[in-house]
């Protein structure tokens, strides 16, 4: 049975794809034209030559990694505890984890500045280190919806309660259970959450700018005001970076235990008995 070629659907899909891809191609093309009359990576070279670029990138990367660490330490035990002990509170926790999507970052950062300003009992914004801490906390808050969801889904995929009991019946303490059984089984979920956190924090502008931190987001905006070709190059690099993050996430998320991270050969067909 032959079906007619779905002309209309294909056109709509192509139009949709063009909507995303054409500006990207145009930006890429523009980023290559710094030298008049030829295509070159001059703009990219000039970006990498700048000490400021490497400085802000390093700062942002460090802050993002700290945010990942803090987020994992807060979210993993919380999600584990909620699933194990108070499963009925899960919808409430889930709703709370979505709050950062409802409250705009600008409101959040104004709250921080008011709360931890010069007249506060905890004047974090008065010192550089304090402000950095506040920045990392801000990143953690922004990434909680993604981190919590990723970790919670990871825990849903395995039967946390029964696995915990199985480990305990074999003599494992709670800590050993978490380290040897729970953590390895949700590692891919944590890694996806971490990549999401990283890509959100790295280019974050609002909180970073209002706390006046020398980070990647504000740098990107500043460059956009001062230069023509370099911002295009930066934008393309930022896109490429996000995509790499997504590919890595996919690779980790679909990996089964006992497989190598990237499996080039077709996987051995294994019949999984469903029961």
């Amino acid at each position, binding site marked *: 049975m032959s079906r007619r070629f779905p002309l209309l659907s294909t056109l709509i899909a192509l139009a949709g794809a063009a909507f995303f891809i054409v500006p990207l191609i145009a930006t890429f093309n523009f980023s290559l034209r710094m030298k008049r009359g030829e295509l070159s990576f001059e703009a990219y070279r000039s970006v990498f030559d700048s000490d400021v670029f490497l400085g802000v990138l390093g700062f942002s990367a460090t802050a993002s990694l700290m945010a990942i660490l803090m987020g994992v330490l807060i979210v993993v035990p919380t999600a584990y505890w909620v699933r194990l002990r108070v499963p009925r509170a899960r919808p409430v926790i889930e709703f709370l984890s979505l709050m950062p999507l409802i409250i705009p970052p600008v409101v959040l950062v104004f709250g921080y500045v008011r709360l931890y300003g010069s007249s506060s009992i905890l004047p974090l914004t008065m010192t550089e280190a304090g402000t950095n801490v506040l920045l990392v906390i801000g990143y953690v808050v922004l990434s909680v919806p993604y981190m919590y969801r990723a970790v919670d889904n990871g825990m849903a995929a395995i039967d946390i309660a029964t696995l915990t009991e199985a*480990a305990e019946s074999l003599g494992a303490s709670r800590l050993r259970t978490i380290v040897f059984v729970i953590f390895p089984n949700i590692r891919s979920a944590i890694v996806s959450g971490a990549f999401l956190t990283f890509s959100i924090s790295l280019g974050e502008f609002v909180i970073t700018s209002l706390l006046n931190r020398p980070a990647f987001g504000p740098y990107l905006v500043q460059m956009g005001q001062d230069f023509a070709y370099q911002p295009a190059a930066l934008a393309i690099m930022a896109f490429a970076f996000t995509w790499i993050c997504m590919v890595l996430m996919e690779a980790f998320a679909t990996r089964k235990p006992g497989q190598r991270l990237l499996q080039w050969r077709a996987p051995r067909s294994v019949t999984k008995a469903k029961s």
Partner: protein
Amino acid sequence: MSFLTLKNITKSFGPNTVVRDFDLNVASGEFVSFLGPSGCGKTTVLRMIAGFETPSSGSIHVGGMDVTALPASRRKIGMVFQAYALFPNMSVRDNVAFGLKIAGMPRAEIDTRVAEMLDLISLGSLADRYPYQMSGGQQQRVALARALAPRPNLLLLDEPLSALDAQIRTSLRDDIRRIQQELGITTVFVTHDQEEALSISDRVVVMHKGRADQIGTPAQIYNRPTTRFVADFVGKLNTFEARVESPQSIFFAGQNIHDPRHTDLTPGAPITVALRPEALSLRPRPGDDLSLPGRVLHSTFLGSVIRAQIDVAGQQVSVDMFNRADATLPVAGDMAEVWFTRGDVLVLPSVM
């Protein structure tokens, strides 16, 4: 000598009391099953023995030691779950070795013990597989090996066969019993399947509404139920309203039946008597001394068994007969005699 002793166990979750006044003594090496419908408290009792729940009152002793307040991780129990609960990130070998590693056993000893355990469940060839690469039956055998590897005091099985298909269920059931007898390990098995409980156990505890209704050997439970619930739950029954005529006879289905086994009954009292379908036959067998007239309603050919529904004095009665090459299917509408011996008549206890 009792190895596992449960004394006066009660467990409440908020206002719901799910286990009450539960007493049980299990001898060393004994295989005891908890049988009952869902919600009867059988799993809760098992989880209290395991240490996953704490009794609201009462005490649990294992090998003479009070373990009531001991956390699960220090009770030296082996537990097998309905959902297998193998660690997905570990190979078969690592799953079985887990309890040994936790106990701090040296590497070489672990390897020997793991090989021994995999031999016991005949899965040595799959040692490097991961749980997702195995069938349910194989996973459950690995779970059994994992539970037994650290040589626990007790083996606890929480409906381990319920998630498997019929054929694997029977073979794994036999494997569990063989391994249990080989190792001589005291075992508690929870199930809602009476055939499982009767076939595998030394003793069966029939549970109902949080209480142990009857504790006895499979034969005692099936042949001499002491409560109405046990009689109804275990096996199929044809029940008849009857009346005590005299201390030596009861009247039911239009006949006076002389039954010297039940002499303690008050004359005139209404009672319920029951007959198992397999105790009945449509042709007299040697020893059959009683019969009831009836009419065939319909009959079913089940392979090894022929099942007939007979109308006896307005009541529907099930009759199960072994199939033989010369057996003919009873024809609906025909008159028939339902034969049995007086020893097969169960007088049901009036207690529920």
